[in-house]
């Protein structure tokens, strides 16, 4: 089976034709190939999401590996890393292999499981990290995301232990005592709304400690969903000292502020919480500069009853897979090389996904995304008027061309807040 994508611009360069055969981009005879019109489209290395919640096993009413894969494909992703906070928790080789297998069965994107750092995400003893690493899922990223490994000794051990298989600990930073009952960013808006605050220092202090620990024991550390200007400063200093730390920011933290909570609509409830305008601009600058390495969605769907309720009783989380690229474009502009770096190459490197993050040139695996920069998709609602949350992303039409491992995406150019959750 051969495909020829005609007249496409690779990363904004002059138009060219891409021949795909047997899952690899090739040169040579295009005779007999199915021709796809690439006129006006930009080819990017397929996007890689380092932070996705697929909810399966356990909460299939919120999202399944299959429905999440569809959302990912629609958003231009060719690989997603599935977080471990499922039920049961992905803390054994058995569970990560199950998720991996479900991803293969769905067959839309590569689903790479993330393993839990501690048993049951309880933060008490290490999960069998080595068994997960050597399983069929070949787990390299470990995270207790949703919970914080707050015990410094346990964090130190985890950082050390994964060095044996070049693993990386992805840390959700939240000092638990400082965030008891926390509902939103601690600040003027929270005071006005009478919602318990989630202080920035609860993130920043934990980040600082993790960075120092990583510096001390020497492995890789990945920092999940950086949300404050203070955390950016911690990262800047750590990188200047040469610590092996990478960091991600979510689309919603690049776009929205805590003012959104004024509606008390829990669609804007997320953890870490939406911060201030000053934080948003610090995060945008850090992403451009490279202090923050990647955009990761923290796509976190919930069942409708977990969002159509009182703010305090709602579960935190927003959707992101379908809107991340358009938000990144609005923040970074049409700098295709930078987009490729922040949303494909760097996340693929961090996750150790060797088949992803390669520019679509001859010789590369055909994990690529076609973007129509002029396209608008009316998926998102207008600002300030979010619709009712949906239980899960709408089922998109199957990705148009049946190219193996090739995705075509038409994201809206105008950034709209991710509102379904």
């Amino acid at each position: 089976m051969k495909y020829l994508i005609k007249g496409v611009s690779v990363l904004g360069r002059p138009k060219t034709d891409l021949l795909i055969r047997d899952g690899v981009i090739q040169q040579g005879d295009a005779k007999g190939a199915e021709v796809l019109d690439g006129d006006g489209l930009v080819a990017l290395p397929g996007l890689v999401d380092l932070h996705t919640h697929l909810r399966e096993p356990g909460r299939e009413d919120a999202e399944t590996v299959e429905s999440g894969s569809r959302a990912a494909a629609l958003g231009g992703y060719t690989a997603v890393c599935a977080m471990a906070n499922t039920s049961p928790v992905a803390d054994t080789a058995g569970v990560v292999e199950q998720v991996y297998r479900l991803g293969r069965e769905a067959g839309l994107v590569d689903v790479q499981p993330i393993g839990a750092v501690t048993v049951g995400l309880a933060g008490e003893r290490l999960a069998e990290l080595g068994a997960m690493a050597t399983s069929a899922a070949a787990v390299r990223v470990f995270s207790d995301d949703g919970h914080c490994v707050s015990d410094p000794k346990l964090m130190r051990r985890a950082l050390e232990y994964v060095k044996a298989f070049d693993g990386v600990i992805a840390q959700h930073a939240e000092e638990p005592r400082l965030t008891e009952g926390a509902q939103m960013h601690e600040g003027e808006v929270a005071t006005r709304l009478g919602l318990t605050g989630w202080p920035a220092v609860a993130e920043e202090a934990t980040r600082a400690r993790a960075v120092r620990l990583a510096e001390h024991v020497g492995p890789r550390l990945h920092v999940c969903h950086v949300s404050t200007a203070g955390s950016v400063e911690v990262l800047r200093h750590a990188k200047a000292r040469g610590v092996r730390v990478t960091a991600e920011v979510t689309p919603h933290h690049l776009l929205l502020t805590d003012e959104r909570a004024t509606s008390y609509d829990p669609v804007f409830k997320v953890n870490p919480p939406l911060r201030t305008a000053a934080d948003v601009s610090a995060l945008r600058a850090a992403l451009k500069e490279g202090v923050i390495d990647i955009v990761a969605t923290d796509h976190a769907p919930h069942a409708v009853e977990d969002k159509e309720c009182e703010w305090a009783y709602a579960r935190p989380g927003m959707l992101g897979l379908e809107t991340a690229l358009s938000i990144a474009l609005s923040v970074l502009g049409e700098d295709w090389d930078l987009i490729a770096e922040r949303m494909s190459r760097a996340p693929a490197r961090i996750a150790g996904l060797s088949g992803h993050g390669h520019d679509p040139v001859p010789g590369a695996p055909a994990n690529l995304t076609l973007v129509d920069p002029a396209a608008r998709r009316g998926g998102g609602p207008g600002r300030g008027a979010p619709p009712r949350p949906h239980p899960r992303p709408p089922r998109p039409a199957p990705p148009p061309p049946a190219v193996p491992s090739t995705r075509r995406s038409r994201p809206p150019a105008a950034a709209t807040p991710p509102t379904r959750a």
Partner: protein
Amino acid sequence: MKHLLSAADLDAATATLVLDTAAEMAGIAGREVKKLPTLRGRTVVNLFYEDSTRTRISFEAAAKRLSADVINFSAKGSSVSKGESLKDTALTLQAMGADAVVIRHPASGAPHRLATWVEGSVLNAGDGTHEHPTQALLDAYTMRSRLGRLAGLKVAVVGDVLHSRVARSNVALLATLGAKVTLVGPPTLIPVDLQTQVSYDLDAVLPDADVVMMLRVQRERMNDSYFPSEREYARRYGLDGPRMRKLPEHAIVMHPGPMNRGMEIAPEVADSARSTIVEQVANGVSVRMAVLYLLLGGKP
């Protein structure tokens, strides 16, 4: 006015209209027939997710004096305790034809959510640590009737402001009506970003105060290290006889109730002529009648 969700939503003209209307309603309380036909055929639901007999009875009396039908829906022993969501409860009330829902709820913002699900008016009767707008209105009414004005009054709000919906509503409303509020209490219980004056020294504030509003301090705050002990709290921030005598001659002492006598307020103070605590309860009915009339008395 469609809903009353937050005192911060009231502009000066609307707030004054409520107080003026309440003054007329107060006249009715002195009559032989304490009932008006105004809201005949209207249904008011009291939806209480927290026990608060005082507030519920006050709203019930107000609604009944205006001839509305009152349905009391208490969370205990109802479908709510069986896990029914607020939205499903809202749809049930909607189907019953509730013209207004008075809601008391432990979660901040619950009335705002409810207002998106029902067609009738929603009255916030206290939500979490957010607001309690009718309390602020009755407090303002009490100040105005005792002291003759609100503009320029110096009001000290003393105690656990951080967790107090009464304080939040009062700060917003009093600012709108031109009073000057000073928040007083230990720094652990005073949010710094309410954009109002703050003092940690009660004795320094008293000689210049027209109104002292004491907030209820919950004993469980002590266990969360907001202050070291009840005794230390009472000594630093409790209003006792000697402190009361530092107030100007005309100054009044308010408390939203229920009081912890001996903790934030000494019995000698609570029972003194400066105390408006009983008046506040009576004024509560007039103010709630005014609010119900203004919400329900016109074209739906």
